[in-house]
């Protein structure tokens, strides 16, 4: 197993961690962290699979990942604004709308 294979496998673990965090964390900021970690895992799988071969590294996945990093930071910025807006209107940075009782901070 080459080094690139190790990183591809680490990418798989990161995808799973990110998915799990996205599913079980209630706080929206944590959900955004989880999405970012999931994305990093996908990037690692992509580049790790096209890793340094005899012909040298494959530039196409590298370019795709650079594009992905910029799209990820755009989406994160928008997600953070949405989270703040939701907190201003709803009083808490979560998506739970089925909580019984009154919110003490509202």
């Amino acid at each position, binding site marked *: 197993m080459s080094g690139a294979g190790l990183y591809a496998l680490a990418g798989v673990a990161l995808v*799973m961690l990110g998915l799990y965090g996205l599913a079980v964390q209630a706080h929206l*900021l*944590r959900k955004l962290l989880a999405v970012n970690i999931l994305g990093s895992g996908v990037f*690692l799988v992509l580049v790790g699979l096209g890793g340094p071969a005899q012909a040298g590294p494959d*530039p*196409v996945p590298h370019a795709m990942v650079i594009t992905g990093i910029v*799209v990820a930071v755009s989406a994160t910025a928008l997600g953070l*604004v949405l*989270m703040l807006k939701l907190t201003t209107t709803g009083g808490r940075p979560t998506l739970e709308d089925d909580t019984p009782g009154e919110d003490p901070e509202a």
Partner: protein
Amino acid sequence: MSLLQTGIDALLALGLVWLAWRALACPDLFRGIVLFIAFGLLMALAWVRLEAPDVALAEAAIGAGLTGALLLAALARLHRIAPAGTRADTREAWRNGPALLLVLAGAGLGLAVLSLLPEPAGLQAQVAAELGRSGVSNPVTAVLLNFRGYDTLLEVLVLLLALLAAWSLEAEPPRREAPPGPVLDLLLRLLLPVLVLAAAYLLWAGAHAPGGAFQAGAVLGAAGVLALLAGWRLQPRLTGLPLRLAIAIGPGGFLLVAWALLLAGRPLLEYPPALAGALILLIETLATLSIAATLAVLFQGSRPGAEPPA
């Protein structure tokens, strides 16, 4: 592949997974974000080990630096809006059902990755064959700005769209802030020329060495973020049309070049080889300005020029 190198790779891979786990699991949000920034820096190291220096630069500047700054700024705003909301009320940390499913899915994905590994079939040969006609000698820049220029055009538009959406939401009214200390101000006066120079170098070097518009734009955007932190603000006469021009000139210039090529009877974004180098540099320069302005404005949160309530 010597034993030492494999050891380094294994440690780095394990460190990435462990840091991601800690960033998601630690109860304090601030610590979680700091761990996430450390994770981004470790990712940059992993890209270097994967012989992807262009990606490493982008990861360090954008993935670790600017994403971290955005997260910390949002956490501070969250603290002002809802002080109780900064404690992460995690649900029970380990739920057997979804966790078991995910472990199984992960094992399946891992097997798929392992089965794909022995195939060294990449696009290196095709890129190398066409590199001479692309106008640049850095293969990653050739893919980004020439062979897959369409992706990059859409990517610049995504950044613009995110900013428009953020502005249209107006999540936070502008506030009067206490002026920060003089130390940051003085440091910035020394640092700013260096950052601008570094960004210009990255932009210029992108044609033949690691670097390019996105890395340069991120460094310039980081300079903008530092300026905002030091309490510098754009003069009111610059926050209107000039700022919007700086934000739109990247996607706009890119679209104009694409349109001119279509009018000249060429396929979408297929530059004539004689002009390719100059066109790529033009697009990258405009994109650098726009990326920097957009990232800095996204960090500021409220629309520049909006008057804080007295």
